[in-house]
């Protein structure tokens, strides 16, 4: 299982590789796109964060592709805004042609229209979590349209992932591993991701709220309010899937993803190292139990490894 890492800092690419990165993903900005389609039209889901998440232009990304490939690594370019218009799809086709010429390893896409466009250009297609591949029916649909890799949503259990992987072969799979958990589904969260305001989940947990309860009594109200308190204050403050690595290795998952295109490179390197160490441990283990006994817990385990609240796959421990 390769470790997929966001590449938003070329200065530290060798640090990422030394830490254990095997693949990179990257997005880009294009001023022409913005002037044509407006400031709220995203090329990818992080376009609203401007240079913080997409520091490079397409021309720079093409150079980066060359650099990364010379280092023997794989690199993918992401087009995972929630939806694109006909005109935008036409523009993206031009990007795809340029990326194909640059010998990119694949494009990460969010919608079926882009799967078709990329497939026709014989570009390797990675279906983003934005597509919401939650079951075998959906996986078969995308595989049969020409998808090469499916990124499994972060809100599926390990058992569910295993079923999909077994029942829909002939396609690669990628799973979420570290950083930035999410209360909602990437596939249908339709608020903006931009600099001016936080994500909608952030706005909701910091907003004043009123809880309306039918047939109220003290116990019921207590349970609802306590639940809300834990949900808003403690759930997914971190996100980690290290305990699931053994299972994913056994399933032959192709890649695990460290997210965080706006995060500090040192923190990302740290996470890469933890995943890498645990991959090595998993390879030498004979059982899940042995792996859980021997694995390296994350650096912040005193906070993170409590009650499953920071786990991508809490069922591994709790």
């Amino acid at each position, binding site marked *: 299982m390769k470790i997929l890492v966001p590449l938003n800092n070329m200065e530290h690419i060798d640090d990422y590789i030394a830490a254990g990165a095997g693949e990179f993903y990257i997005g880009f900005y294009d001023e022409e796109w913005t002037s044509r389609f407006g400031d*709220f039209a995203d090329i990818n889901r992080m376009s609203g964060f401007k240079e913080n998440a997409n520091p490079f232009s397409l021309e720079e990304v093409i150079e980066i592709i060359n650099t990364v490939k010379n280092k023997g690594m794989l690199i993918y370019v992401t087009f995972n805004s*929630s939806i694109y218009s*006909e005109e935008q799809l036409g523009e993206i086709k031009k990007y795809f042609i340029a990326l194909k010429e640059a010998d990119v390893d694949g494009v990460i896409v969010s919608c079926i229209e882009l799967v078709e466009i990329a497939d026709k250009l014989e570009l390797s297609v990675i279906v983003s979590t934005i597509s919401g591949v939650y079951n075998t029916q959906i996986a078969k649909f995308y595989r049969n349209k020409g998808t090469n890799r499916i990124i499994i949503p972060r809100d599926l259990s390990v058992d569910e992932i295993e079923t999909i992987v077994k029942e829909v072969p002939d396609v690669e799979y990628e799973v979420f591993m570290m950083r930035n958990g999410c209360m909602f589904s990437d596939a249908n969260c339709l608020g903006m991701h931009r600099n001016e305001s936080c994500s909608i989940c952030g*706005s909701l947990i910091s907003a004043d709220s009123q809880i309306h309860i039918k047939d109220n009594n003290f116990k019921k109200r207590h349970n609802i309010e306590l639940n809300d308190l834990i949900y808003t204050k403690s759930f997914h403050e971190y996100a980690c899937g290290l305990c699931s690595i053994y299972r994913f290795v056994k399933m032959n998952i192709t890649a695990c993803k460290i997210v965080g295109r706006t995060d500090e490179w040192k923190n990302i390197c740290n996470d890469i190292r933890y995943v890498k160490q645990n991959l090595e441990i998993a390879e030498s283990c004979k059982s899940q139990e042995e792996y859980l006994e021997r694995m390296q817990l994350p650096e912040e385990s005193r906070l993170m490894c409590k009650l499953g609240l920071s786990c991508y796959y809490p069922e591994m421990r709790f």
Partner: protein
Amino acid sequence: MEQISCLNFCDIMNYLNQEEETIEAIIKKTAKKAGFEHVERIYIGSYFCAQYFLHMDDILFDDIVTQAKNMKIQVTLVIPVIPQKDLNTVLKKLEGYSEYFEDCLDEITVNDYGMLAYIHENYEVRLNMGRLFMKDYRDPRYPAYFKTVLKPKIFTKYLIRLIEQYQIDGMEFELTHVSINFENKPKGIVIGVHTPFCYMTVGQICEYASINKQIEKKFRPNQSCAKECQETIIRYDMQDGREWIRVGRAIYFDNRDCEIEGVSKYREIYFPVEWEGFINEDISST
């Protein structure tokens, strides 16, 4: 502009039915709330929750379809995105519903491509693309975006081929902006618009389903529940004068002033959710 009056009972049927009223009374009451003189169609099932869909009360379901038939109202069955662990059970449940398909339950709304292909291959029934296919951003926190006219991006050449391949009859949309223009809609497609709330986000992790779970088991995706969502609604004060509510797994904002353009006829699909109706209601604020 002609509006076809529809009621959306998805995700809230138990909550509507708690006062032990007859189905006819519920339909009449909610129609009045919507301002409808008569109702042409009811949507039942779920847009957002596999657990809700899976555990719909069969007796209640039968009551609704029977009463709808008596009142000459058509029924649409709505199927949410089903996570893997429940897929086979839901497909079995669908088999059970198929006996209704030749009656007043004459169409299905699906919300993902897998189910779209499955229903097309296995059932002869009218087919709609549900609200989860329509992924234009909606975000009133950004007035410069919100106060524009949306031309839905989904109206592409690819969509026209998809409509032909899967024989899609209708598409459902949200009140995402101050105005929506449907002039580019594919020919023959019936447009449905959900009112008065627009869903903004949804997840497989349900806050309400965790209420009675021990802490280590809270906030698991698509976990089983006791339909706590039918007894709890959270309202959020986003300081924009707008209602923001959590109903079931989804977050909605109200957008009652949205204008519809570019279409001569559409279904208004009214969601009769209300929090004022709760018996022994208690409000706690943060």
